[in-house]
């Protein structure tokens, strides 16, 4: 069971498996040719996209191109956790971008390291952060930086889940660690406008397995939540914790569980029934709007608050959903991926 969970949770290993981005002997970047310059008009300058070479990142770049390629040169360079600050610095010097787009947490950490070694008073190009888990924490302290959170606002998922299910959905529970109070409070405010109450339980200190079990039981037995929302917090979702804490309690909970990772909506796992994920192409288009806004502001981020993703992809475990409540069949055509118990999973609609 745990081995299977390990496979399912590979999606959490952000940045894992990416290739090395050490400089080549001639000092060039190893991926410069693979993800090289694109001959597009550059009247407005260059947008330098830095990040991993994975499908989701490619979708984001497609979205950026959809909106910006007529006016900007879009240049992609692969960087990973193994890329050095020197290499990153060299890339930026070579490309001379008008704006940086940073994809994922390792790339943000790398850029933070680069900013940290610059002399005081250095003026940085504006940077737009995408695909970074818990954006506000990840980008705190970065200069001239804005971005779009990677986590889909919970209210969007709640509304979609409510429209799919034929049972009341008013009170949603969430477990979180200390430090996430602000995230949960903000999500609760947004959800309240749609009539939802977000019941949050902070995990007790000490043994994590016991803490998760206790927290879940409080949500189920005392708060009487109608559904559970699971934060994309890798510290709460490793295989052992799923197997020893989440699954044993939720097996008897009989409530829908909404997650933010498609691999957790699995016919084999019987954990999440519904996942809401960012639509990466739309995320890229949304980021393009941010670039346009920055251009209007003379490339100064200023007081621009980070945005939240709007467009989503939906995954539904139909079998589990039907076991919980009647579902509105006509709404199924609005779901991107449907999974049924006993079926091969991971199939995406073509």
């Amino acid at each position, binding site marked *: 069971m745990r081995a299977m969970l390990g496979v399912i949770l590979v999606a959490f290993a952000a940045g894992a498996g990416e290739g090395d981005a050490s400089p080549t002997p001639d000092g060039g970047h190893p991926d410069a040719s693979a993800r090289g310059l694109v001959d597009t008009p550059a009247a407005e300058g260059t947008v330098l996209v830095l990040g991993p070479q994975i499908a989701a990142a490619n979708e984001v770049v497609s979205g950026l*191109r*959809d*909106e910006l390629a*007529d006016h900007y040169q879009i240049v992609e360079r692969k960087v990973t956790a193994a890329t050095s600050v020197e290499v990153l610095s060299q890339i930026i010097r070579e490309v001379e971008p008008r704006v940086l787009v940073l994809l994922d947490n390792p790339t943000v950490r790398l850029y933070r390291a680069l900013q940290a070694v610059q002399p005081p008073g250095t003026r940085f190009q504006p940077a737009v952060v995408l695909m970074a888990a818990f954006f506000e924490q990840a980008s705190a302290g970065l200069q001239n930086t804005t971005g779009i959170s990677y986590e889909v*606002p919970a*209210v*969007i998922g709640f*509304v*979609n889940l*409510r*429209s799919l299910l034929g049972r009341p959905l008013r009170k949603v529970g969430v477990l979180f660690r200390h430090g996430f109070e602000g995230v949960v409070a903000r999500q609760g405010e*947004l959800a309240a*406008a*749609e*009539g939802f109450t977000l019941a949050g339980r902070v995990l007790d200190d000490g043994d994590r397995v016991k803490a998760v079990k206790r927290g879940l039981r409080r949500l189920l037995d005392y708060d009487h939540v109608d559904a559970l929302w699971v934060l994309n917090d890798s510290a709460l979702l490793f295989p052992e914790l799923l197997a020893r804490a989440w699954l044993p309690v939720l097996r008897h909970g009989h409530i829908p569980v909404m997650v933010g990772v498609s691999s957790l909506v699995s*016919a084999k796992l019987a954990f999440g029934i519904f996942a809401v994920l960012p*639509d990466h*192409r*739309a995320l890229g*288009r949304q980021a393009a*709007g941010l670039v346009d806004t920055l251009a209007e502001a003379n490339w100064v981020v200023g007081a621009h608050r980070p*945005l*939240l993703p*709007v*467009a989503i992809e939906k995954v539904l475990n*139909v079998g589990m959903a039907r076991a919980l409540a009647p579902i509105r*069949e006509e709404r*199924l*055509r*609005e*779901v*991107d*991926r*449907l*999974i*049924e118990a006993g*079926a*091969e*999973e991971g*199939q*995406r*609609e*073509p």
Partner: protein
Amino acid sequence: MGEGAKSCRIALALVVAATLVAGSVRAAAPALGQKIYVYLPSNVRPPMLQRVLAAALPGAEVMVFRHLRDFETSVEEAPPDFIISARPFVDRCDRWKPVLQGFAAERAEEPYVLVSVGRAVDPADIPDLGIGVVDLLGKKGMPVLVARLLGTTALPKLIRVGQPEDLLPLLELGFAGAVLMPARAVPSLREKSALDLRVTELKAASVGLPAVGVAAGAPVSTEMERRLMGLPPAVKALLGVDDWRRP
């Protein structure tokens, strides 16, 4: 199609069954070998719409696009025999001419309204509002279209989204002061949301319903037109029309 997509298969089976009952598709229909590209933003996922259309138009090669840019690129680089899109898109392209016009409730256009939260939109506020809208024409074309619909001379600040369901989050998250949408879609929005949604009607704000276009100068395929006109109501409804008529 994913093996898990049983419900989609059921829906597809129902549509095909309805089609057969209506007598619109004959099992032995000859392959037409014609390409049809479709870009119609809707909450129905493109793969499902593509399967339904392919089943209803045997022999035709149907491609339903999720992204406007992909549709535009494909139409340009590998032109199909037919396109199906919102009338403003068909009209925008000199190379394409409408051969069939969609009708709903006996109208070839549908009224658009502004939807906001808490209070109706004051027309005087429109220049300062961010307005959410489903993208039919792209970055250059949409501001012009929306300005016409709103009756303003200045190009409005738009937040374009790819599908109708993305409009609601714009209101929920406060990213848009209002969203511009077909009046017929308001009831389903209200059904889905608990927000205090207010509708502001707009004078003379109508958008052409989907049309079928062919390349200008191409030979007219009356057979395909007949087949499209004969699609069963359930399939036409997925395309947002009740009927196709020659313009």
